[in-house]
């Protein structure tokens, strides 16, 4: 069932690309010397391949597997959790929190820069992962962003943003 569902998803992506995203997202000039030179020639072929692969999976689903991603049968430990039919509420919530923290970090770059949110991110993720000892929670969170800042700004010459703390830049 899962393979068929994946097939439906892949076919849908292929067809959406072909009928919607390519016409909307690719500007084709009025006059094209040859069809193979058209900007949408290649993406159209690829979208058809996607749709065909989706169809293949729908017609010949094979035995349902639990995700490939290089996880071999002799490596059962890593055939863990995510591809199982359902993951518990706690795990879902933890993953959602990680995603929220990461996108929060991205949104905070303009306002707070990369260093302070980096500190909060490290401490929060370690806490989410179960670390409760104060020193391992705080020390890497304080030191790593500061070290990265020093390296990128003072050695590599990359202007890492500081947001409202821009006045601290030496």
């Amino acid at each position: 069932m899962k393979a068929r569902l994946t097939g439906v998803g892949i076919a849908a992506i292929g067809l959406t690309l072909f009928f919607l995203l390519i016409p909307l997202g690719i500007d084709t000039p009025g006059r094209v010397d040859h069809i193979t030179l058209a900007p949408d020639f290649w993406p159209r072929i690829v979208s058809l391949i996607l749709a065909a692969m989706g169809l293949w999976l729908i017609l010949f689903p094979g035995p349902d597997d639990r995700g490939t991603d290089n996880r071999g049968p002799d490596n059962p430990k890593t055939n863990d959790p995510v591809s199982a039919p359902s993951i518990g509420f706690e795990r879902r919530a933890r993953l959602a929190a990680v995603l929220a923290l990461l996108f929060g970090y991205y949104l905070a770059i303009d306002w707070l820069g990369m260093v302070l949110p980096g500190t909060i991110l490290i401490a929060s993720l370690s806490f989410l992962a179960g670390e409760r000892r104060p020193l391992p929670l705080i020390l890497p969170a304080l030191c790593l962003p500061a070290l990265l800042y020093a390296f990128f700004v003072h050695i590599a010459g990359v202007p890492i943003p500081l947001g409202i703390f821009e006045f601290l830049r030496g």
Partner: protein
Amino acid sequence: MIEQLAAAFSLFLTIENVSVVFIGVVVGTLIGAIPGMTTPMGVALALPFTFTMPPVTGILLLLGIYKGGLYGGSITAILIKTPGTPAASCTVLDGYPLTQKGQARKALDMALYASCFADFISNLSLILLAGLLASFALKFGPPEFFTLIVFSLTIIAGVSGDSLPRGIAAAALGLVFATIGLDMVYGTGRFIFDEWELMGGLNFIPVLIGLFALPEIFRYFAGGLDESIRAAAMRGGGATFAEFRRCFKSILRGSLIGVVLGSIPGIGGAPSAFLSYSEARRNSPRRDRFGKGELEGVAAAEAGNNGVAGATMIPLLALGVPGDVITAVILGAFMIHGLRPGPVMFEQNLTMIYALFIGIMLSSAYLFMVGKFSIRAISRIAEVPNRLLYPAVLVCCLFGAYAINNSAFDVLVMLLMGIVGYSMMVFGLPAPPFLIAFILGPLLEDNFRQSMILSEGGLGILFRTPICWIFWAMTLASIVFLVKSRRRRIPLAG
């Protein structure tokens, strides 16, 4: 000849030269091992330091960083599934599964041995065959490139796991992502949707990190916060001589592939690594174990990756043509010192070229020493529990992604690719075909369209030279072989 060699030795043998190669290899290894830092970035950063150095010293520093960076990328690829360079993404395929099996030390050892051997072969080719390989490289036009890339893409079938349609679908997704940006021929937008930051396309590094490192971290948080894999990663022993001997054919083949592809301007280490991996898999009696933690896979990928190191200097020194970004920076270093690489340089500055060759050979030895030491040092990193390591890796990745173009947009790309990679993992779509297609896709399309421009739309140009025919024949043979071996295993199933 002997006099020139003696003069070259006296030019090279200074404390500055001997130590600067070492410093270069150390710095390069470190840069390659930091997620988000790239070797071209490291070489470019070091360029200003060479202004005040004598020419040989300055250029050797850059070459040391280049070689160290090629190897360093494999360290994090093996240990935390975060390749430091695009070429190292091929090492992930078997390197990380070996770490999961508790054989990280073995994988790191084999990566080092293969890297050093391939680097040595590449340097030797540079010294002995520069003229011959340069004239061969000149025979490669867009149709030859296109057929070579088509052949390289046959590896997708090999890294698709048990489901070929899922692998091809993942590769097709990679090709779609590779088309984002301005169209090469007409300059019109493709999937840009008025976002000017998409005009240049998606950068390799954020995509690479997003596709490999982030899904693994997401899986850790969505799973049972399992610490046992990392704790056991370095418990196994190192690679033995018997294992090196078993992988030797693949290492030698990969080195030669690296030499040939490295001497062709514009190819780079990633296609070479993937092609070497593909050939190793095709010829190995243990091909079913590739992608699940096969030592030969690590050896082949690293040999292909490092085999290009010396060879990329061939078009630069023999023709004055930089083959990639790094050799373009090195060309800049030559020119800053008033030197112009090319045939004339071999006549006017032969002593200096020999001195560079000596330094390059020394860098292979340094690479081995630095690699051996770094494996020991890095074994301590592997002991850091995931709950502390993953947040730190994430922040390194975020800083690295930003630093590539000084753009927060690349941070967003990395995060979104992380979600794409995780979704692919959940639905059983393998990530390696996506990445291979993403790396090779632009080369494939650009060379196809350049061929079509040359022939005014005639497909006959794709069969114009014996080189094209050879690659078509190899592609066909490869497909027949793959179909036969798959039929034996699983008939038609998705």
